[in-house]
């Protein structure tokens, strides 16, 4: 539910900011946070990432399967590593680091798909800068349960 809402918010913000900036990847960050909290099964998160990516491609990129591939790869990577870490070692800074890295990975993937990179360099940098506090928030929120336990 949260990733679906994040997807819609990201879409609406992108409509609002079409001419000025690339909105941070709220959908991916929400998936990272939900994965961190363990609120959904890994399989449902993977397929959620796939569907969300596919819809994003249908709406924005036109390269059907591209964002789906990026999101699935990012989430798969997270699930593989995060679930190997003992509960005691799972911390907000660590999840934030994952969120930051994966946000950079997905952003870089989209950035490189533009072809002519020079005009979109600034957009990419702005997206990553704006994504920084959101990634920190995703890490904190995703690990809240771990700290409370």
């Amino acid at each position, binding site marked *: 539910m949260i990733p679906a809402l994040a997807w819609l918010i990201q879409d609406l913000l992108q409509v609002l900011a079409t001419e000025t900036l690339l909105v941070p990847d709220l959908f991916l960050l929400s998936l990272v946070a939900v994965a961190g909290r363990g609120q959904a099964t890994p399989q449902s998160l993977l*397929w959620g990432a796939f569907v969300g990516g596919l819809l994003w491609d249908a709406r924005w990129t036109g390269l059907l399967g591209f964002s789906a591939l990026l999101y699935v790869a990012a989430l798969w990577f997270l699930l593989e590593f995060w679930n190997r870490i003992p509960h005691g070692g799972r911390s907000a800074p660590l999840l934030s680091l994952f969120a930051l890295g994966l946000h950079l990975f997905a952003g870089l993937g989209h950035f490189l798909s533009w072809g002519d990179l020079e005009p979109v360099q600034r957009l990419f940098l702005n997206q990553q800068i704006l994504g920084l506090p959101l990634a920190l928030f995703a890490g904190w929120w995703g690990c809240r349960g771990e700290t409370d336990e």
Partner: protein
Amino acid sequence: MSETESRKVRIQGVIAVILALLLLGGSAGTPFKAGLERIVLAVLDYPERPIRLLLDVIIGAGGWVEERATLLEAMATLREENLHLRRRVEEGKIPPLPTEKDEKALMARVLFRSPRAWWKEIRIDRGSRDGIRLGDPALSDGFLIGRVTQVEHGFSTVELLTSSGLLVPVVVDQTRDLGVVTGDEVGQVHLLYLPLDRRLEKGMSLSTALVSERVPPGLPVGFIADEEPDDGAFRPYRVRLGADLTRLYRLQIWLSGEDDQP
């Protein structure tokens, strides 16, 4: 996560990646892709519409607070341009634009521009419900950029001048030579069918000749950029479009209000 669950994740991860790769490699130009895009756009139209309206309000408000000096300067330029155009119409150098009562320009926003058809077409947020019809011309910054080639209830597709499928008859304003403008799908536009003995100067302006009932003659298109190697039959010229297609977010659709087909 147990080892069994971990294996399940890996298997499903591999399936999802393969599926994404298959879609990426094989969905271009398929009815599935076009259908999915159409459905997603149609569904998202409802939540996005208020945002687009808000954006229009914000942009409109920005216009209100624009400095008076800027507006006055723009008005002076337009007045001068208007006088110049009127003089050229009176001299018979360009035909007058039809001024039907129901003619109007409709503002539209670019909804979707596929990277695979970047220089071919764009989808806009206006459709038959707004009065758009097949063949209506699309303009940006006062210059022709393409024609409507597909109309749905709430959306339309505009084929750009950079598309190789669009051939637009034009006239060179300074020499009255007639030719055809077409694109090459990679961002360039060329003027074709000029006889070898005709020499055009860089910077000469092009405007539409009579294209169809829907595209009036005299719409500015662009300027001659440079001469290209001839193929023995005619001399092509590269055309610099008047509108900037790399920063195309909004455009105008010229509605004629007539019922005829293009």
